[in-house]
């Protein structure tokens, strides 16, 4: 997908930096990648589900980005291109490792089917400090890791890194419609996975009686 050039100041600043790097001011590469260092790691971690591999892949992705910067075309955002590089690196690492054998069954699901929520616990507002608790964070990471890769990828780009639907689609090489469908399923699956798994930290005990569920 080729998008029209962006005219926002950030994009123009990055384009100017890239020109200067390509003309020999190589140290400016640090400035170019600074806003994306964390993002690349998080995306790699979400795909690989392993901190050491994710760090290694993040380093490889930045090295590759520097090496092939001359091939970058300013029709798209540098961030999107960089994330494409990182995703490809992570996918390659995944293929090389045995993790592929452990691919969740959900990978094989047909995403065209509708997803029906399974749990109707009455959710309450989450305490703002919840994520700072390590055990909660680990459960959230485990829940995300249990999703199929295609859902993890969309979810991390959109809901963790707040990329737009269009940029997410471009980075993953899929349509915006596919992004929305996968995002919908990822959000609902996570909701079901987490509704009963966090010791009631944000759910009340008032389960809706089964008899009131629409299909019962």
């Amino acid at each position, binding site marked *: 997908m080729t998008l029209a050039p962006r005219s926002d100041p950030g994009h123009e600043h990055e384009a100017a930096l890239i020109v200067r790097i390509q003309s020999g001011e190589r140290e400016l590469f640090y400035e170019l990648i600074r806003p994306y260092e*964390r993002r690349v790691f998080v995306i790699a971690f979400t795909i690989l589900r392993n901190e050491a591999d994710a760090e290694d892949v993040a380093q490889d992705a930045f090295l590759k980005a520097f090496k092939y910067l001359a091939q970058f075309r300013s029709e798209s955002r540098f961030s999107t291109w960089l994330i494409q590089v990182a995703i490809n690196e992570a996918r390659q690492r995944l293929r090389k490792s045995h993790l592929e054998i452990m691919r969740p069954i959900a990978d094989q699901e047909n995403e065209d089917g509708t997803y029906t929520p399974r749990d109707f616990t009455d959710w*309450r507002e*989450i305490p703002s400090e919840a994520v700072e608790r390590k055990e909660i964070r680990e459960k959230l990471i485990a829940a995300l890791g249990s999703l199929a890769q295609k859902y993890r990828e969309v979810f991390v780009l959109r809901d963790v890194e707040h990329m737009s639907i269009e940029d997410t689609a471009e980075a993953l090489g899929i349509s915006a419609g596919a992004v929305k469908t996968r*995002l919908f399923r990822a*959000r609902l699956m*996570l909701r079901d996975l987490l509704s009963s798994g966090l010791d009631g930290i944000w759910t009340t005990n008032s389960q809706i009686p089964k008899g009131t569920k629409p299909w019962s």
Partner: protein
Amino acid sequence: MVVTCEHVWSEISNYFEGDVDPALKEALEGHLAQCPRCRSVRDGMRNVIDLYSDKAMFPLPVGFYPRLHGRLADQVEGRRISRRAWLVSVAVTGALAASAACAAALDRFAPRPLSEMSQPARRLPQRLVAIVDGGKMFHVPGCPFMHGKYHLVAAEEAVRRGFAPCTRCMRDALRSAGKVTPDFEGEESASGATEGK
């Protein structure tokens, strides 16, 4: 517009994206106000989005930035040779220097001729010389100090058989070592021996 629970669930993600038209949005909100099940779906999804949006959700490993910048430095700052490659290059340079020093030392202790005529065997001219059966010296063919029927052999072969160089005719030959006279070329046989007169 009337919407069902299933309709709400299928649109709830788009609802959070702001990607529903005003009429549908109004219908969805009307349904949500009355349906506890759909509110559970909405609130749960909102919590999921909020939780994973938190920056604290994915802490970076300790030392992430120094390690990243350290690895990038070789490429970005033009330090193309890694530390390991640098160590290897130092080791190779050292080995080459040591072997050169050894070679120089061996050459220094190599035997030196005491005079022009006391050439070590390895410096014998690569040429054919004439020997006479029963004789003690090898000669340049035509040497006036050689008597009898001779045959040609390689100088090294003559030395191996115990012949010594003729101090008269071989003097000039040794002085002009390397300047093999064309007279002998073509006379050499596969066995290194050619009958003379």
